């Protein structure tokens, strides 16, 4: 278990503001945020390159806040891998073993397993300069893992890899972390990467953690405008709490003169008459088929498709709803569904905002 307890640190005018985080053993936690959020700064504090002003870092219950990097047992893979160019791949991989005074023969079975898993056996006698981005990343992972660190830290692990190989390396990393049950902290600005790799995710912005939670929770229920905006969710609208029910809240969507039911465990936080915002991910908006009644659907609105942006596998539809005030809703929909339903611009449709996918922002 790795724990940050109210870590605050400063570099120039930038501040890390009371960061608290717990990563259980074997978990893969991803910190996702835009460039300049302070992700790398936080990593540098974690691996011992920067001293926090206050707070504590605990690794397996032991405080390591004042420890130098070489005593922390935290292996770090930077975004450009930093393989040592004056050593062969084999010497790179064995660097940590030798630096810790361990005989390479002692780690031979583990190393063999690692080399086989990462498919780098044929690269061992080559120089890092002659490897592709993906190969470098695999070697850097082997080098970091061979010393069996308590925590593996990866900074933007796929940024230097060609797009065509990125998916392959992502899958390999995911299986690797599962195979070796490695406690891992990854920082990235890429949402897809975060949701693919992380069991738990934290959103970081301006030196603060905005929200932490499970992958599904973070994916579907951002709790702030900043978080929703970072994930590119444009379907965020103002509403007013009409009533609190046993299972959630009922909102009045004033712009379209209609109510919206939202199941919510934290309904006690809200009061009738309170202004809130609610939102939904574009892929969670359901387009109802004209040939089916689907009475069970809730939060149903008639609308018209104003624009279809075709982009390969998934397309984006802009749908206008409302009478006096026109509201635009973005819908991401699979290519096959567009074809099957024969969706076209200016077509009248009905959409449903599936209650369980609606999130509330009370800022």
């Amino acid at each position: 278990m790795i724990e940050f307890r109210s870590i605050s640190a400063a570099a120039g005018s930038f501040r890390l503001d009371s960061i608290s985080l717990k990563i259980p053993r074997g978990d893969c936690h991803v910190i996702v945020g835009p460039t300049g959020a302070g992700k790398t700064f936080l990593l540098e504090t974690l691996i011992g390159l920067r001293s926090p002003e206050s707070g504590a870092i605990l690794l397996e219950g032991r405080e390591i806040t004042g420890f130098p990097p070489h005593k922390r047992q935290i292996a770090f893979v930077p975004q450009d891998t930093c393989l040592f160019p004056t050593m062969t791949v084999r010497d790179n991989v064995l660097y940590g073993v030798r630096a810790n005074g361990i005989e390479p023969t002692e780690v031979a079975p583990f190393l063999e397993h690692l080399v086989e898993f990462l498919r780098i056996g044929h690269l061992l006698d080559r120089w890092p300069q002659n490897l592709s981005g993906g190969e470098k990343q695999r070697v850097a992972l082997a080098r970091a893992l061979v010393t069996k660190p308590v925590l593996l830290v990866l900074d933007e692990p796929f940024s230097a890899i060609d797009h065509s190989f990125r998916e392959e390396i992502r899958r390999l990393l995911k299986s690797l972390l599962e195979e070796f049950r490695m406690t891992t902290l990854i920082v990235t600005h890429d949402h897809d990467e975060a949701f693919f790799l992380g069991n738990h995710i934290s959103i970081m912005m301006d030196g603060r953690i905005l929200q932490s939670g499970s992958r599904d929770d973070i994916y579907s229920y951002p709790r702030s405008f900043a978080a929703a905006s970072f994930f590119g969710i444009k379907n965020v609208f103002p509403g007013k709490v009409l009533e609190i029910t046993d299972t959630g809240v009922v909102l009045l969507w004033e712009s379209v003169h209609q109510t919206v039911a939202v199941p919510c465990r934290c309904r006690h936080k809200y009061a009738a008459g309170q202004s809130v915002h609610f939102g939904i991910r574009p892929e969670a908006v359901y387009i109802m088929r004209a040939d089916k009644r689907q009475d069970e659907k809730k939060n149903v609105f008639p609308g018209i498709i104003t624009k279809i942006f075709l982009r390969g596998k998934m397309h984006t539809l802009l749908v206008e709803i409302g009478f006096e005030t026109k509201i635009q809703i973005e819908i991401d929909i699979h290519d096959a569904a567009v074809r099957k339903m024969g969706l076209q611009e200016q077509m009248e449709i009905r959409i449903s905002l599936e209650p369980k996918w609606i999130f509330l922002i009370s800022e």
Partner: protein
Amino acid sequence: MLKKLTIGITFGIFTLYLLLVLSLFAFINPSKLVQALGSERVLFSVMLSLKAAVIATSLSMLLAVPAAYALSRYEFPGKRIVDVLLELPLVVTPISLGAMVLIFFQTRIGELVQAHGVSVVFEFPGIILAQFLTTVGIAVRTMKNTFDGISPRYEMVACTLGATPPWAFLTVTLPMAKTGMLAATILTFAKCIGEFGATIMLAGAMPMKTETLPISIFMRVGSADIEGMALMILILLSVGLSVLFVLRFVLTVKYD
């Protein structure tokens, strides 16, 4: 157009130097060259120059590497002043630098150093000190540029793998700085072997004692011995170029 112009300028510079070297042969008699190479005085000059340059270069590099590393990696009080002072040998002429050392040895501290340490003025250590002082700043500057070009993250990664900072420096950064070290060593050695101004101020021009190759050339100018001067210049050129060639050959490592 640009290609032709730049290559033309390159060849222009090369031709200029080549003309200077070839003009030496107008005054060199091959039989006298062989005779001169066997003479005790010429051999003494060659050996003295080589010995002094090797020791001064080694000393310069030995101190330049850690100093440059500190300037490149750490922040400390007075860093800017130190950085500016490194340019001293470039701003002050070697003769002035030699004179400054002479003046220093006239002070009480200087006298104390002379009395309790190595005697420097008009002695072999004076040659080494003169060469060292004129080159160490340049060596530090060259090595600092080298370390500036190596991302500190390599060491950072090495440390997270369990290496102590000195071990990370020795096993990761220093091998990566090899090309820069080669450049600094070549530059330092070339400056040392051709050093004249500071050497003559500190060690004087004494035949068979402090007569390095540049001083030997100077002494022959004094006696209007143009043939002897041309010979010594050719020897200086050959010794310098040979050592630089060997250095380049020995220290260049390719990783592929």
